[in-house]
């Protein structure tokens, strides 16, 4: 009961603080500063950051195209959409994992809302992801798959995907404050997403049991299905997939944020 009271009081005060116009100014300046201080603010820096993705795409294409790529029109685009989605999830959550411990000094010695620090941290990865999505869109247009009216679908899909990433990242950042081993465990575990997500194979090529596991236990699968529906099927997205995405993102972020509000103080004490 007391916990519920604490969380609801914090939630109310945070909502009040986060919706102030001044908070938007702080968030914008933090995002601007983060991007400017990163490699991505210059053309060459941005180019370097895309090399990793390109190398991965080329390697995956040569290794898997003969076996898994048969029957998939535009297999490079199929691969690229999977690689960028999983890479964003892995890198953004790994960054978020340390957000509380790295920013402890700021969190305890300034009135900058902690949510702003979290959003500013993810902004660099989100910026890179946005560039990669634009590249995917261009390739989709070249292939002739893209339907411009499907661009609207990006909004619910990307917002709910960001919510999922933030939710997982918040949970990780809290647990990292209590147990440092989380970093090593997540470094190994997160890499598995490249293989348990249908990045280079199709869900249909799996056994019925695996199909169910990959579709419903892997949180990334519905987002990948949705992105591919935009890039490769002219936006022919099943409503159930869209609802799955929205539910997954909202539920993950909602649950994680409530846990975050309850434990942030203790987590910062332990950092």
């Amino acid at each position: 009961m007391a916990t519920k009271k604490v969380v609801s009081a914090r939630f109310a005060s945070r909502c009040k603080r986060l919706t102030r116009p001044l908070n938007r100014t702080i968030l914008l300046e933090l995002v601007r500063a983060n991007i400017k201080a990163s490699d991505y603010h210059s053309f060459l820096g941005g180019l370097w950051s895309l090399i990793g993705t390109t190398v991965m795409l080329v390697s995956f294409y040569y290794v898997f195209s003969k076996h898994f790529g048969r029957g998939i029109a535009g297999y490079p685009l199929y691969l690229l959409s999977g690689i960028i989605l999983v890479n964003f999830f892995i890198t953004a959550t790994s960054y978020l994992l340390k957000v509380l411990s790295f920013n402890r000094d700021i969190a305890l010695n300034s009135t900058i809302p902690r949510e702003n620090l979290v959003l500013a941290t993810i902004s660099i990865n989100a910026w890179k992801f946005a560039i990669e999505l634009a590249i995917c869109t261009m390739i989709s247009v070249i292939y002739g798959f893209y339907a411009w009216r499907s661009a609207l679908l990006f909004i619910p899909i990307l917002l709910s995907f960001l919510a999922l990433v933030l939710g997982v990242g918040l949970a990780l950042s809290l647990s990292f404050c209590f147990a440092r081993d989380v970093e090593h465990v997540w470094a190994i575990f997160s890499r598995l997403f490249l293989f348990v997500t249908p990045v280079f194979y199709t869900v249909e090529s799996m056994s019925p049991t695996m199909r169910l596991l990959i579709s419903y236990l892997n949180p990334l699968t519905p987002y990948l299905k949705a992105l591919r529906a935009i890039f490769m099927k002219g936006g022919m997205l099943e409503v159930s997939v869209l609802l799955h995405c929205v539910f997954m993102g909202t539920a993950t972020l909602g649950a994680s944020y409530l846990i975050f509000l309850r434990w942030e103080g203790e987590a910062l004490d332990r950092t």
Partner: protein
Amino acid sequence: MNEPLIQASHVAKRYRVLKRQRSTLRALKALWGPEKLTMEVWALRDLSFTIKRGEKVAVIGRNGSGKTTLLRLISGIIDPSRGSIEVAAEPLALFKFWIGQNADLPVIDNIYLFGAVCGMKRRQTEPLVAKILDSADIKKLGFAPLHDLSLGQRQRLALSIVFQAPADFLVFDETFVHVDQAFIRECNAFFVRLAESTRTMVITSHDHDFLKKYCQRALWLDKGQIRLDGPAAEVIAAYEAEK
């Protein structure tokens, strides 16, 4: 002027501090064993006070008496473990001058960034940039990365931005230590203006002459409790007499 800005009622703050360096094995042992991994430290106990709008209040006390914790509670950075604290306005709080600065960015970008933290939008900060650089005595270093500046220059930069901020409620925690003699003139001019204004200030400092000059009231904290609350000169004299 007489309406309360801060109302604290039976406020207490507890921290959980690790007994020993943490390891996963010790954490697992603590989960199942009788020995806890942490111990409770009460930084503040049963504090009740009111600060009115326009008051300039000094918080004094020995190291570890709970001054910074009290300022963090007032600023809304942390929540009390018991009791309640109501603050009618959000303060501009300055605990460490390097908070809100990005060392990899040029000085000018940091002015905008720290300006935002101090409550100023870009269009409000823009006309003040030259004045801030001049006040911090780094006119020629506007485009230099912040990490090329000395700590003293970074402190002057942060304070020069704070001096321009439109905040009505200010919280300072030992912010003016190590300020060089040349910059003290700027600081004094700011505090003279502040003392004459209707703005509210809560400040901690070990410079008692400074506090007596600019604060009307002082709270003496001792082991997390209020030992004395009253006119600054009297409270500081009592504190100095005990030392």
